[in-house]
């Protein structure tokens, strides 16, 4: 049964040291507030899965929480590199991390297979691409009808997935709209799912029947965190804080500046701070 909980409690009840966890969001609806709460609670030894591990994984890696990352694009989208992830991979700071790298198609198919309860996914992928040589989790199978060789990857099955969504209704059904990304698959592939939402409405009766809704019995906990996606955005609520993505490039470039920023904006902050951060971005949505 889904529970409506304060974010502090939702994270504490559902994330554990050593978990395999996905904080998903494909540019849109990134669960920043949940990630910051996880940082405050100081988890260690996490396997972090995400197609596009942007700022929040850069932050978690920089804070020493990651044992391994599984990803397909470890960049600051539209800006450049992720400097904390680079520092960990290139220099082992603050700790060395394992890397399991796929393409977007590989990760998307792996999540889809996870949501589908399958052990693996097959697709036409990686031909001539060198990732298949450095990642032992990329194998191949022959089509039993045509003989064509297809790529195979194991499905993604996180212990827990965190997403941010526009709204829940009172029963705990969750609506995701706009760029829906990989969120539905990430939730359905996981053993537990925690969703932060902009708001709770009484019901979804007036919604179009074909929208992306996660029924309440697919969700473990819901926390209301207005602005919880900042500096990403929530379609219909507030715009992307592109300046924050540009600024992150400078903050993350220096270990000390990074640590100071994290102390001020994450460790000493709370989920309640997110609403104010998006106040100036609501008109632009």
């Amino acid at each position, binding site marked *: 049964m889904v529970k409506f909980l304060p974010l502090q409690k939702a994270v504490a009840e559902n994330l554990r040291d050593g978990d395999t966890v996905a904080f998903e969001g494909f*540019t849109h609806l990134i669960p920043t507030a949940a990630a910051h709460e996880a940082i405050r609670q100081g988890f260690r030894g996490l396997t972090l899965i995400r197609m596009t591990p942007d700022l929040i994984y850069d932050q978690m890696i920089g804070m020493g929480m990651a044992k391994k990352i599984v990803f397909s694009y*470890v960049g600051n989208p539209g800006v450049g590199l992720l400097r904390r992830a*680079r520092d960990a991979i290139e220099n082992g700071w603050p700790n060395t991390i394992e890397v399991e790298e796929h393409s977007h*198609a590989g990760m998307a198919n792996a999540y889809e297979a996870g949501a589908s309860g399958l052990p693996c996914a097959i697709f036409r992928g990686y031909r001539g691409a*060198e990732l298949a040589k450095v990642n032992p989790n990329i194998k191949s199978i022959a089509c039993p009808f045509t003989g064509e060789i297809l790529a195979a990857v194991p499905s993604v099955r996180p212990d827990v997935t965190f997403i941010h969504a526009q709204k829940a209704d009172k029963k705990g059904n969750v609506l995701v709209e706009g760029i829906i990304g990989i969120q539905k698959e990430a939730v359905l592939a996981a053993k537990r799912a925690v969703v932060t939402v902009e708001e709770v409405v009484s019901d979804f009766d007036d919604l179009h029947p074909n929208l992306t809704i996660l029924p309440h019995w697919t969700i473990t906990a819901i926390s209301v965190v207005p602005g919880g996606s900042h500096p990403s955005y929530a379609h219909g609520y507030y715009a992307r*804080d592109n300046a924050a993505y540009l600024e992150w490039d400078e903050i993350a470039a220096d270990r000390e500046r990074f640590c100071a920023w994290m102390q001020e904006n994450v460790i000493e902050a709370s989920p309640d701070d997110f609403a104010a951060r998006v106040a100036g971005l609501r008109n632009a949505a």
Partner: protein
Amino acid sequence: MSSFSPNEMMTIAASRALKNEDVCFVGIGAPSAACNVARLTHAPDITLIYESGTIGTAPDVLPLSIGDGELCDTAVTTVSVPEMFRYWLQGGRVTIGFLGAAQLDKFGNINTTVIGDYANPKTRLPGGGGAPEIAISSGEIYITMAQSKRGMVEKIDFFTSFGHGEGGDHRQRLGIDTKGPTLLITDLAIWKPDEITKEFTVVLLHPGVTREQVQESCGWTVKFAEEMDTTPAPTERELKTLRDLQARTKAAHEGAGEGKAAYR
């Protein structure tokens, strides 16, 4: 005719290669600018697809990321990421995949993964994202990048996405039945693969550019076509379209938070 920068020439030359009927899978950066200039000039009905799931977008400003809200607001439809890669890319619906590159070799092979050794990289780059499958499932591939000896190299450090491999029929030998890279647009020239060897060959020099300039900023020995012409300079309309787009984009990206990230 206004004066124009090499980068403007590159973007405009790239935009001209796109047709009204194309279904184009758009990478961020120079490809995105070129695709939208095409849409705003000679190819109003071109279908632009971004890997975030937005199909048939017509953004008024260039997205900073591949998932900015405006891509969805203006799209014909927005689908999930698995559907994007399964039905639309792998399904063979994309006519042109438009890619940039950190490192490129003369056969159109691209590296955006690492500089140095994969296990112990000198520089860890963002990685392939959608590119490994864009490179094999799109009907053909256009590449655009500013020339430099660091970027255009004899041997790339990592095969993020496959172009023509070692050249010739290497794609077919790997069971890839799409055309691969058919066009390279740099800030200095337009290149096409040799029909047999598949090595990129300069077929047009941008206005005022010399062969020597092209060679000096390229890490391999450049082949030039026997009959080479000059890229038509940007028209006023093309330049204005690109500059207006970039001005709108700059204002928008700095705008919402008054140019300042919103933390306390």
